[in-house]
């Protein structure tokens, strides 16, 4: 793809279900190590995961991170009073709030994409494999959703459900599933008439088995690539919902909400908005770099770019 050198060896677009897994894993690891930008992505994602899991133990002021005020130390600039990234108008340590906020910031998009994949992929595989009326029906419904800008649809649904982090996640999943249905449908339609699928059917295997054991493994690579790129996009989207006030509510430490709260002080206390925003930027960047690298490795058609 565009940002990386095309050093990886070309790979078959469609591989048979019995390709041994370790070789593929090893190939991915080697390719990632060889590519500096991909490596940056992996390191950033790793660091974010560490923050998300161990945040409460890593944050210097975990209680302030969760929202407890400390009015004696309000509005401290970064580096003063033992607060590396300063404090907000309620005296809470900005660094701690960013660290504690890492968990919801990553978990919501991960669950959202997982939900969108869990709904969208089976529907798309089934539609592409069976064809006919079922295909028509599923894809026409998907088209109705695809006709909206996804973020706009998510914003509207989140507003309808009422602002909360869970509702924001549901809204994002509703906006994102049809993209996976369309992708999986195309892949399944392309695979449907391949000899190995015919063979599986001739053996008398049920549709479910054919779909799960023979179609899914062969359609997995593009879906994984799409999902890894989408995690970055959805982190951005959920941060945007939070910025508008349609996701987590105060005093929850949420990056998007922190950027929004800091807006009133932007010229005097830039750190209140700029730093949580930087956290969103780095998280999106990390998954974009990782997604690009995975696309290079798993989707050989893109390598020529």
């Amino acid at each position, binding site marked *: 793809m565009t940002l990386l050198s095309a050093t990886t060896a070309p790979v078959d677009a469609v591989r048979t279900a019995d390709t041994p897994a370790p070789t593929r894993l090893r190939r991915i690891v080697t390719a990632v190590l060889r590519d500096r930008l991909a490596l940056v992505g992996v390191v950033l994602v790793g660091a974010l995961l560490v923050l998300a899991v161990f945040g409460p133990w890593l944050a210097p002021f975990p209680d302030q991170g969760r929202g407890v005020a400390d009015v004696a130390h309000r509005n401290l600039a970064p580096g003063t009073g033992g607060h590396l990234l300063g404090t907000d108008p309620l005296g809470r340590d900005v660094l701690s709030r960013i660290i504690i906020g890492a968990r919801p910031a990553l978990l919501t998009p991960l669950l959202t994409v997982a939900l969108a994949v869990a709904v969208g992929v089976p529907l798309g595989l089934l539609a592409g494999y069976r064809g006919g009326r079922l295909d028509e029906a599923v894809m026409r419904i998907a088209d109705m959703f695809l*006709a909206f800008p996804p973020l706009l649809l998510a914003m509207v649904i989140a507003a309808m459900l009422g602002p909360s982090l869970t509702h924001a996640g549901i809204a994002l999943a509703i906006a994102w599933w049809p993209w996976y249905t369309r992708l999986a449908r195309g892949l399944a339609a392309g695979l449907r008439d391949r000899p190995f699928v015919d063979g599986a059917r001739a053996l008398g295997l049920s549709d479910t088995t054919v779909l799960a054991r023979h179609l899914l493994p062969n359609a997995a690579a593009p879906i994984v690539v799409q999902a890894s790129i989408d995690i970055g996009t959805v982190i951005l989207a959920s941060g945007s919902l939070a910025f508008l006030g349609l996701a987590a509510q105060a005093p929850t430490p949420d990056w998007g909400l922190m950027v929004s709260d800091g807006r009133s002080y932007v*010229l005097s206390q830039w750190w209140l908005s700029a730093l949580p*925003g930087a956290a969103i930027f780095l998280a999106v960047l990390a998954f974009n770099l990782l997604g690009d690298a995975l696309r290079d490795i798993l989707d050989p058609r893109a390598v020529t770019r």
Partner: protein
Amino acid sequence: MRRFLFRRAAAAAAVLLGTTVVTFVLARVVPSDPALAYLGPKARPEQIAEIHHQLGLDRSLPVQYVNYLGGLVRGDWGISIGTKQPVTSEIFGRLPATLELLAAAMTVALVLGIALGVIAAVRRQRLADHVIRMLAIGGVSMPAFWLGLLLQVTVFGQLGLFALTGRNDPDLEFTDPIQEITGFHLVDALLTGNAAGFTDTLTHLVLPALTLAAYPIGVIARMTRASMIEVLAADHIRAARAYGLRERMTVGRIALRGALPPVVTVAGLTLAYSLTGAFFVEVVFNWPGLGQFAATALLNADYPAIMGVTVLGAAAYILVNLAVDIVQARLDPRVRLA
């Protein structure tokens, strides 16, 4: 080509109809009663029933849908709960501000994105290429609302350049008011020879337009680079070089023309993406457009306003995608025969 156009337009119309089904269903599953939103919490049951009757909510769902569709076509999009004004006049009154912002951002994005992409492709694997690729991936990863705030802090706060918020200086109203002709203040100021108005508009437009352009710049630069690299390796470019054509001619005219079709496609897609991106830029820069109106409506559960913006957003999105298809078909005959 005519059959292709007809087929695509018919498909787009069908999809647009589909989106009205989605917005209708969304509006009907809303947990809160629209009658209460108008009447307030102390409404008597007979008042509520009266409003329900007026709004047609006591009819069957299919009848309600047909009425809803009829209202959309007639331009009756309901009354905004927030401003108590017809949703259509609210929306179309603010549309020019948003369109001007979008037009400025896309112009910047096309010029910068294509230029950066070409430079990266020509200087492949050199320093310039690496820097441009970093910029591109940074641009697509950057939350617009964050970039906007950063520009406010650095460019306006530190350097004192351009303007912090708004579309025009409030004082301009009294000194050199802009006469609305097209609704695009930059154009209107130019048409009326209003130099002060032009400078003021431009000063206010620069930062929001740059903010909104960041994502399209990244996407367009990446696609231009990829496409140019492919084309520069083609035989006809080798032939042009062997023939002794100047490099500027080879790259700038012949190669760039061949590389443009995929760039046009992504440019269209990023325009569609920027329709929503403009919401956030407008909030940050207090830009008096559609996005700011929508953000307020979303937070205050102003359902008629939300639904109006949503239908318009979907329609614009569908139209942009249709336009991309048509342009692509003109540039590449394979598309229209498929």
